[in-house]
Every structure is written in C-alpha cells, then in structure tokens.
C-alpha cells in the first residue's frame, strides 16, 4: 500500500486503498476502505476521488464521493467510508468490489463545511445519499455544543440513507419521501420552514441534488439563516486541474466568476450561487460573469 504524501499545503494524499468491507444499505453500497493518511487530514464536507475499472479499464476519469466518515486507526490502519449509488459504469464497478480488492484513492479534497464559532442550533439537510457526510458533521457540531436537527429526504424509502443513525446523531429528525413510503410524503422544503421556525437555527448545511440545495438556500434565507451547501457538478479530475466542474458563484464583493467546485467548493454559501443560470441539467455563463462571452461568442 503506497502513500504519496502531498509535497505542499492543502493536505491531500493519493493512496492505493484496499476495500475491507462492502455492504448494501437500501439502494446504496457502503464501502469501508483502508486508506492510510486520509483520516488525519479529512474534515466533514470533503470528498474523495476514486479511480475505477482496474488496469484494463477504458474509464479514465475519477469518480467523486462525499466522505461519510473516517477513522484514523483500526485493525487495518486508517479507514475511509463512502456511500455509493450505482449509476453508470464507474459506480457499477465500485459497488461490485469485494473485500481485499484494490482501489486508488485521492483524498481529502475540497473545502469542508465551515463550522459555526458559537454553539448555535444547526439544521442538516440530506437528499438521498447526500446525507452520507452529515452524520460526521453532526458529531463535530455537537462536540462544539451545537444542537443538531436533521432532515432527510429521498424519492422513496430505499433511497434514504442513515435514518437510524440520524436518530442517534441528531437532536431531532424529520424524514420525507416523495412517494410517502417513509416519513412525511413530500419534499424536504415542505418541512423546512417548520424546522427553522422551531429551532431558530442561523445556519443550515445541505447535501443533495441541486434542486434541493436551491430550495434549502431559499427557505434558509426566508428565516435569515445561511445555507452551506455541498454541490455536485460533473468532475473529471477532482483536484482543480481540468476546469470541467465550474459554476457561476459570486464572491463577497458580488462579482460572479465561473469557479471550480472541486477546489473552491464543493461546499459553497448557497446565496453565492447563481441558481438562475442552471436549468434542466445545463448551466450557462451569466452575462455579468468575469470574462463572459461577448456578442459573437468566444
């Protein structure tokens, strides 16, 4: 198991990991991977980028996954847990790995969830496997004296992740499903106003589909809260060198640029994201963005 340590700041390692456990959880696969060096550096909200397909593969690009949890030491050395939904070729391959199979891991990546400096109530919202990074976050928040209210939503019961764990990790849990197969029928945004009203939380953390993140941002704003959202853009490298994962985001001076979600995110303040530029799976460059195409295109 080779570990190449980062030579500069930032704290990232590339390691040849070894799967030590893999189990189905509803529609997902929960993998535990021995990945020495990751646990010591990782913070909630960061992600890992995995190579897929093995030595003969035609799938070259890495796949990114939120870090569910890490454990610095154990019988096997430091481990990394991921929750993976089989979707295309790469996740299909990953979810079919067996114990002792090798997998190349680059982690931790991206900016973690910024933590409140005061012990305030926090709302954590997870959509589908988007809840994966929230339990660890909840633990860290509670260690700092924050109370934690969780809202988990999914299309159906099998696409919820961690409802049982949530009851332990949070002070209150609300569950929604689109089809009503578990918890309340509907979307997380249906129940969120109530949660903000009840807790008075000044901050919400969310991870899940873009539509959900946008509504969490909107509802949070209605209650004067800040939403910190972990976005999911298509990523080819995960480490900031390809420029495929960009999104239009305002900086604190109000200037919009196309920023790389893998290095400047994947956690952004929701109110900085130019949500109106996204529709139906594509995202345009807002006209006022730095270097936006002039008439005639570029």
């Amino acid at each position, binding site marked *: 198991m080779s570990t*190449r340590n980062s030579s500069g700041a930032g704290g990232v390692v590339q390691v040849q990991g070894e799967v030590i456990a893999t189990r189905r959880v509803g529609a997902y696969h929960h993998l535990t991977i021995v990945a020495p060096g990751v646990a010591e550096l990782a913070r909630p909200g960061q992600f890992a980028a995995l190579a897929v397909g093995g030595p003969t593969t035609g799938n070259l690009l890495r796949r990114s996954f939120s870090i569910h949890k890490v454990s610095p030491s154990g019988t096997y050395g430091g481990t990394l847990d991921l929750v993976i939904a089989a979707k295309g070729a790469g996740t299909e391959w990953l979810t079919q790995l067996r114990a002792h199979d090798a997998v190349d891991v680059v982690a931790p990546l991206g900016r973690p969830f910024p933590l409140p400096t005061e012990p305030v109530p926090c709302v954590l919202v997870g959509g589908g496997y988007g809840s994966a990074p929230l339990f660890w976050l909840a633990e860290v928040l509670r260690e700092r004296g924050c109370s934690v209210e969780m809202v988990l939503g999914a299309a159906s019961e099998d696409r919820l992740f961690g409802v049982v764990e949530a009851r332990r990790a949070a002070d209150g849990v609300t569950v929604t499903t689109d089809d009503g197969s578990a918890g309340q029928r509907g979307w997380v945004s249906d129940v969120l106003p109530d949660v903000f009203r009840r807790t008075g939380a000044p901050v919400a953390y969310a991870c899940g589909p873009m539509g959900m993140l946008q509504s969490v941002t909107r509802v949070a704003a209605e209650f004067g809260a800040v939403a910190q959202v972990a976005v999911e853009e298509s990523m080819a490298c995960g480490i900031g060198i390809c420029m*495929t994962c960009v*999104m239009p985001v305002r900086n604190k001076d109000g200037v919009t640029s196309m920023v790389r979600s893998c290095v400047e995110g994947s956690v952004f303040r929701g109110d900085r994201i130019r949500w109106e530029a996204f529709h139906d799976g*594509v995202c345009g460059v807002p006209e006022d963005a730095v*270097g936006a195409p002039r008439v005639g295109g570029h």
Partner: protein
Amino acid sequence: MAVDMAVTFTGRTLPNPLMTASGCAANGRELHRFFDVSKLGAFVTKTVMMDPRSGRGTPRMAETSSGMLNSIGLQGPGIHAFVAKDLPWLKSVGARVLVSIAGNTAGEFADVARVLADSDAFDCVVGVEVNISCPNVANRGLVFACDPLASGKVIALVREQLPRDVPIFAKLTPDVTDIVSIADAAVKSGATGLTMINTLLGMVIDTDRLRPQLGGITGGLSGPSIRPVAVRALWQVTAAMRDGRFQTVPLIGVGGVRTGRDALELIAAGATGIQVGTSTFNDPTAPQRVLTELEALAESHGVARITELVGIAHDRMVIP
C-alpha cells in the same frame, strides 16, 4: 547505467522530455501538492488569452471510451493576471515554463506574446506554445491550424514579439486533410518547433435527454483513445522533415500518453518532448511517473541518451 534524459530545443536544454499538457495541469499549484513540478522538463500552462475569459457553460465534459471530451472554452485569467500571479509562482518553485498562448485574431496572439515577453518573470519561460488549434471556439473557422496561411500569419506575428532565442512551438490539430502542409507553413513562418496534437473535434449525445451532452455541443477528444492519431501525425511530419520537405525542427508529442511505454512510442515516432494531459486526471502524478517509467525503459534499450531514441522507428522499418 543511468540514461541522460536531457533534451535541447533551440538552444535551451531541459533536464528531461516530460511536460504537462496545456489545460490539463492548471498553472501548477494544484499538481504541486502531488509532486514537485520543477522536476519536469517543463511545465506547460493553460492557454492564456489577452482578457479574462469565463469559458463555456456546463456540462463541459463527457467521458468517452478510453478518453474524454471537453469544452472548457479557454477559461482563464487573461495574460496580465497570468504574468502577475501564475508565472511568478511557477518561477518561485523553480519550474521551467512553456507558456501556451492564444488570441481571437492573429494580432491578439502577438499582443499576448508582447505582454509575456515584457513580464518580470519571463526568465523562467523556456518557450512559448502557440495554440492555433483549440477546437473549443464558437466558430470552427477560427481554428487557425486548419489553414496553412492563417497558421503562418499567427506564427510570424508572434515571432516578431519574442526574443530570437525563445523557442516557439506551434500546436497543431490533427483534424486536417494534410497536417504536413500546416507544419510546413508554421516552420517557414518562424516556428522553431511543433507540438502535436491538440484534441480531435468530437461529440457525445446524452441518450436519456437526446441532446448534445456538452453545453458547447462539440468538444475536444483526448486521452489514450487518440494516441494512434498522435503517433501518426508525429510520424508523418518527421518523415517529411527527413525527406527534406522543410527544415527539421524538434517536435513535442502529446496525445494519450499514460505510461512510459506510450511516451516511448511518441519518441520513436519523432517526438523530442512529451506532454501528459488527460492521464493526469486519472493519476495526478502521471507526468512524473511517466518520466520514471520512460527512464527505466530507455535504460532497458541500452541507450546512453534519451535523444538516441528520437525518431528511431524511422530507421528500423522492416520491408517484408
């Protein structure tokens, strides 16, 4: 016996032939977390234009069989920010830099070159790569490298802005009927080297949504899938130079290099330098790893200098 990996381009000697590929390594800081970028022969920067550019909307990528499609659209900070921030950083870590430049017009290429030449950190620049072949421009007619005349004009104008001893590499596209004629025009106009190849124009359709997968509709195809096209292009141009069709200049090979063996393939076809692009997305240490693998392979072939292998396949043909 260690192999001497040094290569020389137009009087500049680099410690080894390995380079990043433009647009596949940002401007250095990100990869420097994984390996020391000053250990590469040269670091090739993301193509920079005069003004800041947002690039295109997303999706900007699609994975393809053994490759990928991108339509970044030359996102970048503009040459002024580049020489103020990126170039000094690269210099500070000791990197030798091959700066990739582009323009919307031939004149803009020259303007970018002038700002670069006038910049404080210019002494870390070991050459300029003139990207006349980016497919991610709104009008395909703007791909200068599709036309010998347009290619020649850009190179001639850039040449005027740069000190004589600064190598200029024209980066060519394989998407032409006759790449030799483009290479010829670039060299006659003052290119002291050629970089081959840029991406192939390609397209992926999302079969769920039944529409182009990229926001930019078409994109550039890269990765191991295109390596045979890169080898062929290097071979054709090298053969033409050996035939005396135009002056011999050094070639930088790029396209689908993932291993030391791949690099050797391009070298044997005629490349003196090697760039690693898309494979870096798979393995952040790829450029450095390829160097190590290449060195071991060269050693196993019993050569004293890597340059002995440049173009060697032209001398080894078996005519059955």
